[in-house]
C-alpha cells in the first residue's frame, strides 16, 4: 500500500498528566514511543502537529459542568475530600495532582487536534497517543482517567460533522466510559475486546451489553478469557471487527489502542505478544480505507509495561499509518542505548517478540473454545434479524 498522509500529535504538553512516581499510568510512554519512531526514521518534524488545549465548552460536550468545576478546584488543590469522593477524585486510582485540569485538557485537545487534521482533509489518519482515557464518566473520574477524550472527540465529530462513528477499543480493560456515553445512540457504534470482567476492572463488557433504546444493537463486546494468547485473540478480533464494520458501515473509525493485553503487562491476565500490536493497526487501516475513505483516528490508552511493551506497540500504529506496514527486525541502537540506562528491566532488541516469552498455558484449548463461543454469540448480533419478539 502506498504511503498515506498521516499526522502525529505530540508536544511536551502531553507529558504533564502525571499522578505520582509510583502510579502505573505514566505518560512517559508517549515520549518513549515518539523517540523510538524518530530514531527509526519513520517520524519526521513535518508529520507532527501539537495538541491544543481543549476549551471547557469542548470538555462539556460530554462531561457535566459540576464535574469540570470540581476538577478545576482539585487542580488548584482546593477541593474538599468529601466533594472529591463524589467525583471519583483523590482515590488511589485517580489521585489529585496540581494542574490536573490543564494537563487533562491537553490530552483532550490532542484528540480534538487529531479529529481536526482528518476532518479538515489535511490528513487521512491521525494519532494521539496521549489520549484514549476510556474509563472517564460524565461526572466521575475512574480507572486513571479524568476527562474522557474519546467520548468528547466522538461528540465533537457528531456535532460538527454529523458522521457515523465506529469506536474500536482493544485495551485489555473494558471501554466502559465510552460505551455508556453512546449506549442509546445509533450513530455511534462501539466495539470493545477485553479480558472478561470476571476478575479484571471494571467488571463490565459482557457480550449481552448491546445498547438501549435507538442505540440497541450498536454496542458490541467481546470478553476474552484470562491467559488468552495471540492466535485466539487475533482470530476472534479479526472476525468480529470485520463483521461489525460490514454491519455498521462507518464514516470514520476511532481506535483506542491500549497496550496492556501483552503477557508482560502487570495489571492484566492476557498473554499476547507484539504480534497483535502489528495486526490491530493493520486491520483498522484496511477497514478505514474500505469504508471511510481512510478516515481513521487512533488514540493511546492503557499499557503498564512502559519499557518493554508500550513504546514498540504504539510506534507500530504510526508505522502502519505512515507507511502501511509495521517495522521489523532490530530496534534502533541509539534508542536502546539511551533508554537502557533508565529502564529497570532489560529492553527487547527487536520489534517482534520471541514466542518463548509466553509462559506455557495449560488450559489453552478451553480458553480458545470459550473465546470462540463469545465470538459466535457476538456474530449473531451483526446480522439484522427478520423479526424479533
Amino acid at each position, binding site marked *: 500500500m502506498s504511503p498515506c498522509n498521516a499526522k502525529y500529535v505530540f508536544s511536551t504538553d502531553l507529558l504533564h498528566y502525571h499522578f505520582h512516581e509510583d502510579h502505573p499510568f505514566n505518560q512517559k510512554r508517549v515520549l518513549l514511543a515518539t523517540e523510538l519512531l524518530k530514531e527509526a526514521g519513520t517520524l519526521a518534524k513535518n508529520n507532527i502537529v501539537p495538541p491544543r488545549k481543549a476549551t471547557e465548552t469542548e470538555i462539556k460536550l460530554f462531561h457535566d459542568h459540576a464535574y469540570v468545576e470540581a476538577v478545576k478546584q482539585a487542580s488548584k488543590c482546593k477541593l474538599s475530600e468529601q466533594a472529591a469522593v463524589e467525583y471519583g477524585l483523590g482515590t488511589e486510582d485517580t489521585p489529585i495532582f496540581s494542574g490536573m485540569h490543564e494537563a487533562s485538557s491537553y490530552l483532550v485537545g490532542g484528540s480534538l487536534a487529531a479529529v481536526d487534521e482528518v476532518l479538515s482533509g489535511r490528513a487521512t489518519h491521525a494519532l494521539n497517543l496521549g489520549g484514549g482515557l476510556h474509563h472517564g464518566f460524565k461526572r466521575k473520574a475512574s480507572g486513571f482517567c479524568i476527562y474522557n477524550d474519546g467520548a468528547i472527540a466522538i461528540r465533537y465529530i457528531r456535532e460538527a460533522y454529523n458522521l457515523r462513528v465506529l469506536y474500536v477499543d482493544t485495551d485489555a480493560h473494558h471501554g466502559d466510559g465510552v460505551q455508556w456515553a453512546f449506549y442509546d445512540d445509533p450513530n455511534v457504534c462501539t466495539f470493545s475486546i477485553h479480558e472478561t470482567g470476571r*476478575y479484571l476492572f*471494571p467488571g463490565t463488557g459482557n457480550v449481552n451489553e448491546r445498547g438501549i433504546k435507538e442505540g440497541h444493537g450498536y454496542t458490541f463486546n467481546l470478553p476474552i478469557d484470562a491467559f488468552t494468547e495471540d492466535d485466539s485473540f487475533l482470530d476472534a478480533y479479526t472476525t468480529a471487527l470485520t463483521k461489525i464494520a460490514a454491519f455498521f458501515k462507518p464514516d470514520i473509525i476511532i481506535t483506542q489502542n491500549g497496550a496492556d493485553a501483552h503477557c508482560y503487562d502487570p495489571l492484566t491476565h492476557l498473554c499476547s505478544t507484539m504480534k497483535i500490536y502489528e495486526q490491530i493497526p493493520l486491520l483498522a487501516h484496511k477497514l478505514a480505507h474500505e469504508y471511510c475513505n481512510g478516515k481513521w483516528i487512533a488514540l493511546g490508552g492503557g499499557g503498564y509495561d512502559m519499557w518493554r511493551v508500550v513504546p514498540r506497540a504504539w510506534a507500530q500504529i504510526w508505522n502502519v499509518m505512515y507507511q502501511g506496514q509495521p517495522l521489523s527486525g532490530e530496534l534502533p541502537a541509539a534508542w536502546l542505548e539511551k533508554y537502557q540506562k533508565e529502564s*529497570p528491566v532489560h529492553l527487547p532488541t527487536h520489534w517482534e517478540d520471541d514466542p518463548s516469552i509466553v509462559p506455557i498455558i495449560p488450559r489453552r484449548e478451553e480458553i480458545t473454545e470459550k473465546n470462540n463461543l463469545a465470538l459466535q454469540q457476538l456474530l449473531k448480533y451483526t446480522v439484522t434479524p427478520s423479526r424479533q419478539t
Partner: protein
Amino acid sequence: MLVEEIMKTEVITLPPTATIQQALDLLNQHKIRHIPIIDKENHVIGIVSDRDVRDASPSIFESDAGSNNLQHEIQSIMSHPVITIHPLDFVEEIAKIFYDKEIACLPVVREGNRLVGMVTEKDMLYTMIQLTGTHVQGSHIEIKVPHRPGILPEVTAIFGKRKTNIVSVLVYPSKDDPDYKILVFRIQTMNPLPVLEDLRKAGYELLAPNQDVGRQL
C-alpha cells in the same frame, strides 16, 4: 436485607369477577407475568400467571377465534390458596421459597392477607446482583483462608491499610477442603497490585488468575 426494601408497591391487580380477556390485556399492556386477585378489602384470594391465562386462550393456529373462553371469570382459573410473604421477611429466606416451591412471584401481605407489595423472581435476581457487587466498577480477588474466627478482619485490615474500598465480600466453602473458606472481594480499584503484594506477604493464598500477578519482573 428485608423484603420491604426490595418489593414493588405498585401492583397491578384484578377482582375475581374480571374476565380472562381483561387479565390477558393487562399482562400484555404492562409486560408482567402475574396478577394477584384481590377482593374488595384488598385481600389476596388468588393469583394468575401468564401461563394460566394462555392455557385458557385459543391457539394461534386456530382460525376460529370466536370462542367465548376468554369471557369466563378469572376466578375460574386462578390458583389458591396463595403462598405469600411479609415485608419483614428476609430476602435470603424468600429465595428459598422461590426455589422450593418452583414459583416466580410472591405477593407481600400484612395482617388479614392485605396486599402491600410484590416480589418477583426477577426482583430477586436483581437483588442478588446488588449483593455480589458485580454491577459497579471493580477488580475481583479470591483468597483461600483457614476457616477460623477472626480471619475476616485480618484480611480486610490489609485492604484498609491501602485505603482500598471494598464493594462486596462473599464467603463460600472451599470445595475440596472443609477447613478452608474462599473469600471473594470486589474492590474499587483498577490497580490491585499493591494489595495483592501485601496479601501475599502476609501469607495468604491467592487464587487464579492472581496467584502470579505482579511477580513477573
